[in-house]
């Protein structure tokens, strides 16, 4: 009975956070299949530690941190886990046809250093304030602002470069 109750509680948390974590994971790793694997792994860890996570003030932030940590070393970690886990084989994610602009933006995001990408996603997608981001990743607000500024500048430069018309040939 207690297990069923815990599962129900976790399922509610899962439904509430799934879309946000999947969106974040996608922005962090740049492709749906890896994002799906990551989020599956995050929820496995959340469920494994549910008695502790459920009592936290901000269990969403805890899940988000697990996601970010896994994303940093995702190849190394997931390869090991997949080789010995009983997770389903890597499932493909059906996606609607996305625009070239969308792909350009994802590509620009992937070209950012990991920490810059993380703060930009937390700011732009999660809507966290610089103070909240600083608290979540354990740094100062000034540093967060610096990383944000660099991330935005890199993306703007990257997109301008892609949208610039090709130079004319001079005869």
């Amino acid at each position, binding site marked *: 009975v207690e297990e069923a109750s815990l599962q129900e509680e976790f399922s509610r948390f899962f439904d509430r956070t799934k879309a946000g974590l999947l969106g974040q994971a*996608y922005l962090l790793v740049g492709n749906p299949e890896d994002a799906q694997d990551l*989020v599956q792994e995050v929820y496995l860890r959340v469920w494994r530690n549910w008695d502790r996570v459920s009592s936290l003030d901000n269990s969403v932030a805890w899940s988000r941190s697990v996601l970010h940590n896994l994303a940093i070393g995702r190849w190394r970690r997931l390869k090991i886990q997949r080789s010995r886990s*009983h997770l389903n084989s890597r499932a493909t994610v059906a996606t609607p046809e996305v625009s070239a602009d969308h792909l350009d933006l994802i590509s620009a995001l992937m070209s950012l250093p990991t920490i810059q990408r993380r703060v930009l996603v937390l700011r732009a997608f999660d809507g966290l304030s610089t103070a909240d981001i600083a608290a979540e990743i354990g740094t100062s607000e000034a540093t967060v602002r610096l990383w944000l500024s660099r991330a*935005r500048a890199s993306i703007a430069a990257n*997109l301008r470069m892609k949208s610039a018309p090709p130079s004319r040939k001079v005869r």
Partner: protein
Amino acid sequence: VLPEDGSDSEIDRLVRLAGEVASEFAWKVEAADVFDARRKRSAGVRSFRSLAIAAFAVVIILLLLVPMPQFHIFPSHGSTRAGGAPQSATSSTLPSLRSDFYPSYLARASSNTAYVVAREMCGGSICLQLLLTSDYGATFERVTPPASQIAANGSFEMTFANPRDGYTVLGPALAHQRLIMTGNSAKSWHLIRFGSTASVYQVAVSKLFAYALVVSCSSKESCSKYRLYRAGVGSSVWVSLAVPSSHDLAGQQIFIASYGDTVWLSIGDGGEVDVLRSTNEGESFSTVSRIPAIGCKLEPTSETVIWLNCDTGNDGAWFRSDDGGHNFGVLPLQGSNVGALDPVSSSIAYFSPVTSRGLYRTIDGGQTFHQESSLSLDVSFGNLMHGLGLVFESQGRTELSRTSDGGSHWEPVRLPKGN
């Protein structure tokens, strides 16, 4: 995508929108899978620990009892590889297209990808071969057909949600139609089973979902009890949905089509066709309009624009709606008798009359049609300019052609021939 003013808020908005795009993906992450994986992983860890302890004990016993053996760290030549994936046919292992095969069916998969079905009579049935082009006719590769043979008078419908995921309904008669799907660009196909008496009437796909209209048949002629099934594109898990209770579907002319989250059904009772629409992925339907025809094939190009190709008995009739199916306007093609409509977008469509020659195109949403070619052909356009066409020749033969100027000029496509 370039921020107009390069401002921070503009960059943030673009990142947020990119993340929101992910909500449209067909994710396969479920809480039940987490519980299941956790149970299996725990069991695996326990088994691994037990095995490790047992192995350690065995090694200790062996070390105590037997003289030290000579260990080989690296495997010798000829060792077998465990856990190999099952083999499937690839283009390199398929025979070349025999010269007596001729192209007969086009299936568009994306703006630059199409599949061409080639067929030929072999004995009392029809042999199939399948070709894939990823550059709309410039080059082709051989892929595996969903079946090597089909019945001569049987049905065959092939549709693709994207270049990778495709569905084919085929069978000798309504009572025996089967759904076969591929998830790897037709390298291999597998049968979808809905029950021992179930026959697949039709399938429709959007970018996200596939829908199968299935009917139970107690005998060759007696089919009733329609069911609608839905699966994520590429998924083998089909969810059963109820068909609209407002209509008795047995013996009616039914067509199903989908775009995004919206599904349409057209149900013809012999005199009028009811168009039904679902905006919740097939969970429920409501009748949105009625068309004076026997049956209407639905061709949505967005969630609001639908083109209809209707059979009125002796003639054909063509309609277009730009409000999701509530209202339909008649297209100015009445004198063309019967023909095929190939909508490319909400404003562009091609029309090929069957009883006369010519290819006609509209670029203004069907208000006017202009003749683009005098050839008699069936077409499948990937975009405004690039298309493939089956040019009808004498004795029922066809030749595959391609255009890159919107249908004004067609050049024959050389398919790989061989024995």
